[in-house]
């Protein structure tokens, strides 16, 4: 049962992360701050959170505790640490690109928000898959 929680969690977090990356790419390619309806990445994130919670509830307390054991915490903490520094680098990268006129400030702000979210989600999935 804990395997099911882990699989659903990785699949949905990965999907949400990819949606954030695609949204950011859409902003860069089209130059519009909402290449698709603005609420799509957020709605997908909320759906993922809900689906993971429901899966955990259906799987029971013991399976949920096993799926959030110390290996999970190690993977989560590692992803958080790396995402923090990646986000710092993104701040610099986007600021430099906007200052140089490569991307507008509004677009840069949206890209930054999407990629900061995606960085943790995709790093978590990456480390989770490596630890299987």
């Amino acid at each position, binding site marked *: 049962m*804990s395997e099911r929680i882990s699989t659903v969690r990785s699949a949905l977090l990965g999907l949400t992360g990819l949606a954030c990356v695609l949204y950011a790419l859409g902003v860069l390619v089209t130059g519009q701050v909402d290449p698709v309806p603005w609420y799509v990445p957020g709605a997908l994130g909320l759906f993922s959170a809900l689906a993971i919670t429901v899966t955990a509830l259906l799987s029971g307390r*013991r399976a949920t*505790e096993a799926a959030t*054991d110390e*290996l999970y915490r*190690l993977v989560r903490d590692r992803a958080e640490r790396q995402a923090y520094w990646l986000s710092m680098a993104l701040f610099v990268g986007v600021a430099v690109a906007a200052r140089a006129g490569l991307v507008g400030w509004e677009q840069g702000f949206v890209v930054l928000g999407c990629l900061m979210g995606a960085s943790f989600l995709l790093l978590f999935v990456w480390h989770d898959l490596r*630890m299987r």
Partner: protein
Amino acid sequence: MAGLVVHLEARRRAAGMTQADLAEAAGVSRKTINTVENGVFVPSTVLALRLAQVLGCSVHDLFELERE
């Protein structure tokens, strides 16, 4: 620092348990057992003690420091 030698897989097999059985008994995921056996993940003291308890042996039977 000396490396860690893991005997968990041998002990588990000797007890006639699968990774899933051991994971269930220890309250962790099968993935955790697999990564401990492969030396990818070093468990906490609490988990090491719990694994030893489940397998009815000492922590030293499961893990030892590599001899230099």
